[in-house]
């Protein structure tokens, strides 16, 4: 080990530059994998915000008649809990949410199309990070009605604690609501989320849906499995049969593009490592040429071919191991620091330490160093001790 360290000290600057080129190669691999992972995460998050987690299926059920508030509550409570399913009312007429008069908010009425009356595992089926506050609670009988707004809506209605007026065309009654949270649903238009059961309990005359849409997100399930589950649930709830499931998530459309990008990035990383390997090979051969006298003397002093080979390759490998350790530490620090650069309500998942990328990167660095040192090592081992007396 000491011999190898001494060997690296022959040309400190050369050693440092070789190490830096290896370091860049490893970081290129780790960085590119990380960038690919973040790009994938951004694309997936955006798609899942807008069209649901992958896979997401929608099944619609038209009631055919108006259901009572109690029936609506039964439906919401009967949603399967073993799978991720959420429910949203359809056919709502005239429901509107506006700032409560005198509450200081800008008097903007949010149209009915932007009010979502929901139930079930909404956050499990759509990717909606909470920017501030919280999601709608399980408490559905305590006034005022809880409301969650999206970021666009928060700009017009106001944020947490804002009191709003919930009204519908079927009733002259206006029910008070309070904003309990803001979500980032990826929608640039104002949207407000209200819990179906709370509305049914506290203002049953406001929301009179003509049907519901069920959103299913069960990884691994096929369309027919969703159809079967929907039909069973509808039958259990004595509802008309649902429409055929429609897959709505768009993540799969992005994945091939992202995969292609990742392959391209990977190729760039391999290229970076190849350049590093050629650099090491070049430096190694130049170094051996420069050290030919020293190596011949070592041979004369009793170094075997194998020990000369081990000396040259070993010092390169020692450098590569040192670089690999530094790379792992730097990669870990970068990954740990990454969330600090993301907005708090980002829909993307914080990148996890790319173990595989680091393993691949450091292995590639070791392999690169080995490949770059093999030819110089072989050249060095061929030093002829017979030349020792000839200078």
């Amino acid at each position, binding site marked *: 080990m*000491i*011999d190898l360290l*001494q060997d690296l*000290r*022959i040309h400190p600057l050369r050693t440092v530059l070789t190490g830096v080129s290896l370091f860049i190669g490893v970081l290129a691999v780790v960085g590119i994998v990380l960038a690919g992972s973040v790009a994938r995460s951004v694309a997936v998050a955006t798609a899942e915000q807008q069209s649901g987690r992958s896979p997401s299926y929608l099944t619609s059920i038209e009631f055919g008649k108006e259901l009572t508030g109690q029936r609506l509550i039964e439906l919401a409570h009967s949603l399967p809990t073993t799978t991720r399913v959420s429910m949203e009312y359809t056919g709502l007429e005239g429901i509107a949410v506006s700032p409560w008069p005198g509450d200081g908010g800008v008097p903007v009425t949010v149209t009915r199309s932007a009010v979502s009356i929901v139930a079930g595992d909404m956050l499990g089926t759509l990717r909606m990070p909470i920017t501030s506050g919280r999601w709608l609670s399980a408490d559905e009988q305590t006034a005022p009605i809880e409301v969650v707004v999206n970021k666009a809506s928060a700009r017009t209605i106001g944020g947490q604690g804002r009191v709003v007026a919930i009204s519908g065309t079927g009733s002259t009654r206006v029910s008070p609501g309070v904003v309990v949270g803001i979500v980032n649903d990826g929608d640039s238009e104002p949207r407000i989320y209200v819990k179906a059961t709370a509305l049914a309990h506290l203002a049953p005359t406001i929301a009179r849906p003509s049907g519901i849409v069920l959103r299913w997100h069960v990884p691994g399930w096929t369309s027919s499995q969703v159809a079967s589950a929907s039909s069973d649930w509808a039958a259990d709830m004595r509802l008309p049969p649902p429409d055929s499931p429609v897959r709505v998530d768009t993540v799969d459309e992005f994945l091939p593009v992202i995969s292609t990008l990742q392959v391209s990035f990977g190729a760039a990383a391999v290229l970076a490592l190849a350049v590093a390997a050629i650099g090491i090979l070049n430096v190694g051969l130049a170094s051996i040429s420069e050290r030919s*006298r*020293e190596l011949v*003397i*070592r*041979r*004369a*002093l*009793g*170094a*075997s*071919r*194998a*020990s000369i080979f081990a000396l040259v390759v070993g010092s390169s490998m020692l450098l590569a191991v040192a670089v690999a350790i530094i790379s792992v530490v730097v990669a870990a620090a970068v990954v740990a620091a990454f969330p600090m650069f993301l907005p708090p309500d980002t829909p993307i998942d914080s990148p996890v330490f790319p173990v595989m990328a680091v393993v691949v990167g450091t292995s590639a660095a070791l392999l690169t160093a080995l490949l770059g040192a093999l030819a110089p090592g072989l050249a060095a081992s061929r030093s002829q*001790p*017979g030349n*020792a*007396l*000839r*200078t």
Partner: protein
Amino acid sequence: MNASDPLLSAVGLTVEITLADGSRLRPVMDATVSVCEGTSAAIVGRSGSGKTSLASVLGLLNTGFSGSYRFRGQDPRDLSDRRLSEMRARDVGFVFQNFSLMAHLNATANVAVAAQYAGHNRADAVKRARTSLSMVGLGNRAEAFPRQLSGGEQQRVAIARALVSEPRLVVADEPTGALDLDTGDDVFRLLLDGVRNLGTTLVVVTHDPTRAGSCDRVLTMDRGRLSESCT
């Protein structure tokens, strides 16, 4: 093997070199010589007479020869590279004309390298190196790097390196060739004293007849032919 046995013996030894242009050169032709343990032999001759080529074979650096050569009873051509390297490390020390120290190692490390190749562990090698440097009067310069040493001091480090493993044979090729006269005398005397103290055999290539005369035997090379001169 006792002191009167030859440490090395060559019979009809011929070294043939193929040059880049395809022509062949025989720097050593049909040389016959034996050198007993603990004695010293100088090889003298004009430049290009084959002295260094002969010393290379005798010092186990070159196995490309015809005829017979045995070192401690063994033909070096029968040995693998590993075994030959081991034998060279343990049994042969070298002193080169241009010192040939490793610039990135200090004096102790330069000497210890030879001891390590001879099979001593690092700690033991360093201990031996310091002792050997003290023997050549460089105990206080053990940590100095070659660039910090004079030519005479560098050659003394080289002598310490050659003797550190207490080898059977020291091959010195023009050990004073790069030194001024007085320094050369000191170094040559140090070399002779060193090998005599250890009972080591010395083969020294030199142009200087006076220094050659201080050896037990003088072998003369003339256009590849070896003959023994009276001293």
